[in-house]
């Protein structure tokens, strides 16, 4: 039956080559867009994350400060600025938080693997600009971003992510519907043959097989195109990011696997549901 499904599915594909290609593209675009959106949102996560913490300023302390010195320094700041709330970032969160606040330190993060990371203090205050005074402190290497622009960037990033995510979802649903409509039209076109097949004892799986094969093929092509497209777009964005000193965007294998899976599952699911509905009403 598998050979029958493959042979008949291939015939369907051959007769509807252009439509199948169109279906593959219609599936590839939203799957690719979803993959790019997800990867970009992961990359923008620090900006989005800090947008909610507009009243928090990160302060990078000198790495050679001893524990006693650091405690003294913290105590001094607390005394001097009672309106600040100072929190030392725990070592296990240090690399991640440093990446959030100081993305340009990626070389340091990657090179030392967290072994020699400088201590990080997060200061919560209603007046972030007041923390700028610490730039003059010999104990401080750098004071993190504290402008309203950061908050704006975060909000824009989040909005962009939501918009692209929604667009991907709508396009994915449309593509699945397109696959379902394609199967529906093919069923209509082959209605006589299907009736004959049923009359001569073909099982529903034998009837459905070729249609599923003919839908899986564009799905596989769509998955492949989406993978290539996502990799190419993220590579281009990475080059742009590196030009301005930001970390490169990475393509997660999980995202690529999800894209390949979506290319297969979406049209297959749509086709399976359409075929089941057809079987329920299509007898004779």
């Amino acid at each position: 039956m598998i050979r029958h499904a493959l042979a008949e599915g291939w015939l369907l594909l051959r007769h509807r080559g252009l439509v199948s290609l169109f279906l593959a593209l219609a599936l590839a675009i939203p799957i690719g867009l979803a993959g790019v959106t997800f990867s970009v949102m992961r990359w923008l996560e620090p900006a989005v994350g800090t947008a909610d913490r507009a009243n928090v300023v990160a302060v990078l302390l000198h790495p050679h400060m001893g524990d006693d010195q650091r405690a003294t320094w913290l105590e001094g700041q607390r005394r001097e600025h009672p309106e600040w709330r100072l929190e030392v970032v725990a070592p296990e969160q240090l690399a991640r938080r440093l990446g959030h606040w100081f993305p340009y330190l990626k070389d340091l993060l990657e090179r030392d693997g967290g072994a020699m990371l400088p201590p990080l203090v997060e200061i919560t205050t209603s007046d972030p600009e007041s923390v700028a005074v610490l730039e003059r402190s010999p104990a401080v290497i750098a004071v993190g971003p504290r402008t309203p622009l950061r908050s704006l960037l975060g909000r824009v990033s989040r909005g962009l992510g939501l918009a692209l995510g929604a667009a991907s979802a709508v396009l994915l649903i449309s593509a699945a519907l397109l696959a379902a409509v394609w199967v529906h039209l093919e069923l209509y076109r082959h209605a006589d043959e299907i009736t004959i097949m049923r009359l001569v004892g073909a099982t529903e799986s034998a009837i459905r097989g070729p249609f599923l094969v003919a839908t899986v093929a564009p799905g596989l092509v769509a998955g492949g195109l989406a993978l290539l497209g996502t990799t190419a777009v993220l590579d281009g964005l990475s080059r742009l990011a590196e030009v301005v000193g930001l970390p490169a965007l990475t393509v997660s294998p999980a995202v690529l696997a999800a894209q390949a899976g979506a290319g297969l599952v979406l049209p297959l699911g749509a086709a399976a549901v359409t075929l089941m509905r057809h079987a329920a009403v299509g007898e004779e």
Partner: protein
Amino acid sequence: MIRLRSVHKEYDGRKVLRDLDLQVDAGEFVFVTGPSGAGKTTLLRLLYAAERPTSGEVWVGGERVDGISRARLPALRRRIGVIFQDFKLLRRKTVLENITFVLRFHGVAPREAHRRAYLVLKRLGLHHRQSALPDALSGGEQQRVAIARALAYQPRLILADEPTGNLDADLAGELLSLLCDINYQGATVVLATHDNGLLESIPARAIVLHGGGINYDGVWPP
């Protein structure tokens, strides 16, 4: 092989079969005859479960088929060879493929399906048209392909609905002879026809339908 008990069939309130009781034993050759609209085709459609009776029981090969589930339907139809009045050939497939296609559903391996299809076509004198599409064949040739398809998987029950409607007298005679051969080999044959000439060509049981009921059931000619 076949048993009908108090079968009624109505279409939109129009009674096509009424209170039909019928039994056909395994290995019988039975003509079902009667004027147009007598219910011959409906009776056959009930047997291969393309229709459900309005009431009553239909049994085929020991299985009750009047309420057969969708899942059991293919298995039932694979036990029955149906020769349709309108041939029901796959237009996009060649003569040979029309037969191998069905054999594949019966689990026959491709090579064996090809061999069997060729043999049955040869038997019906159509092997030289094996690569033709159905639309390139005459009505009689299409009918013979439909017959070949029904015979290819050697079913135990053959239902033929006006199989000679598109054949000339000689071919009709040949077809009848073929169905007789198959019947001698043990298959049960139910042949619906309104062709009196065909009916009188061999002595066999005839069921005459009239107005949806059985008007005569016995050896023909009476």
